[in-house]
């Protein structure tokens, strides 16, 4: 089962992964990380198809896709 893993402290909440995800399962959190950004997270890991589009779109190498 593919699973997107977010290194949330590295996330800057830019939203590029949100747009990149065909499955629409990434969203920006309400909480802040210690840098003051709202990090992205996966709202429905089960729906992840492992296309790694989010990881490729992320400028901060926040996302790894585990399998």
């Amino acid at each position: 089962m593919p699973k997107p893993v977010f290194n949330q402290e590295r996330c800057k909440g830019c939203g590029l992964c949100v747009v990149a995800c065909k499955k629409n399962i990434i969203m920006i959190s309400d909480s802040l990380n210690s840098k003051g950004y709202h990090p992205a997270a996966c709202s429905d890991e089960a729906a992840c198809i492992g296309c790694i589009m989010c990881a490729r779109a992320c400028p901060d190498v926040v996302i790894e896709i585990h399998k």
Partner: protein
Amino acid sequence: MNSKLYARPESLADVPFHYCPGCQHGIVHRIIAEVIDELGVRKQTIGVAPVGCSVLAYDYFNFDIVQASHGRAPAVATGVKRVCPDSTVFTYQGDGDLASIGCAEIVHAAARGEKITTIFINNAIYGMTGGQMAPTTLVDQVTTTSPYGRNENQVGTPLCISEMLSTIQGARFIARVAVNNPSNMAKAKAAIKKAFQLQNSGEGFCLIEVLSTCPTNWGMTPVEAVKWLETNMIPQYPLGVFKDAGGE
């Protein structure tokens, strides 16, 4: 061991980037690192970092780096490559660095057919210093030094580096790419890979121009910035291969 579909490439150090949210410098860094990994040349690679937002590249890449003075990366890389002819030497430069102050150095690296690879980040603006006009700034684009929009009659029109350098015989491979969507990202990676491969097989100067966003200085969200790049930059700077003087 490979329990990951996607993981940070080895050539990228495990530290956070200082880039602004959504800045595509990070994407290009990652692609370069992937290519270096795939070619298996990390330990023989020497990168040359510019002055610009990517000045700290030496913190991000996991191979030797020489930080160069503003615009002179091609000259610095020439010095490096002549000493280490079997290494993989590349410069990473912004459009202020390469197209403005460093214009002579890039033209002459190309003219000499210097066996280096240049990754040229065209974001139509000076990022690091806070959003001044670049030679690549679009007509009417507002920047801090073209506050009324770039005035064609006073300061001219965008400089198309790939087109210009393609007239030079020593240039082996010149392409313009973007990282705005998955298919373009794949093309970008392929072009960058080819440029490195050509260098490693001893062929001449290669330059890959990457259209890139600067959400901060464009005054947009990262997602808006990608849109703006698509609707404004790509028409001015068409993507594609401008020169491929290749034999085989």
